[in-house]
């Protein structure tokens, strides 16, 4: 079953689990399953109109899903999805 790696700030919404297994064939299914299992995560990942927040990066293994087939990207057992909020700033 694919695993989703949860970044430290969002772990408070997954009962402190660092990774969550999801029965999913695509990235979109995996993220949907994640927020069904942990509904409090939803507002941190999605805007009110249901779009993934712009600063939320989703990687499948080492590839950005935006450069794969986005939410339609197919998953295999053993794939790892990483949710990584962006890091930026400046003076």
């Amino acid at each position: 079953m694919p695993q989703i790696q949860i970044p430290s700030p969002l772990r408070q919404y997954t009962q402190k689990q660092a990774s969550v297994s999801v029965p999913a064939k695509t990235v979109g299914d995996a993220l949907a399953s994640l927020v069904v299992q942990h509904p409090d995560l939803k507002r941190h990942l999605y805007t009110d109109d249901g779009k993934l927040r712009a600063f939320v990066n989703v990687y499948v293994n080492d590839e950005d899903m935006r450069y794969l087939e986005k939410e339609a990207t197919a998953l295999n057992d053993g794939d790892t999805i990483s949710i990584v909020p962006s890091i930026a700033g400046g003076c």
Partner: protein
Amino acid sequence: MLKLPHHVYSAVRSHGEQTYPHECCGVLLGRFEDDGSKTATRAEPCGNTRDDSPHNRYHIDPRELVRIQREGRGRGEEIVGFYHSHPDHPAQWSSTDLAEAHWIGCSYVITSVEKGKAAVTNSFELTGTDEGDKKFADERLKVA
């Protein structure tokens, strides 16, 4: 409170000197303590992808973050914060820093680098419950 061993504190400040007059950036790995404090036991330097304005902007390639998070977890370490430098600018968070900060509960360490020498290093914790009420709080930095 953010606790940093001397070698991590020195690495963070040295990185700012190495990249001057550009901003440096990196990840702090360690652990969240039961008392609410954090201990960073490792600094992972990252590249600054903001080639268009590296003297006053930074951005870490998410692919680097994925790798650092994965390797850290393999060692039992978590991402507890991030660091960057402000070349010839105070070690205070900016409106850009706040707008671009999304890791609530983590530390954001800023070092001012004046004429190539690391000056002041401050830490700020991103507090709040979501994007709507997040803010930076001054955080005590303990170097030991």
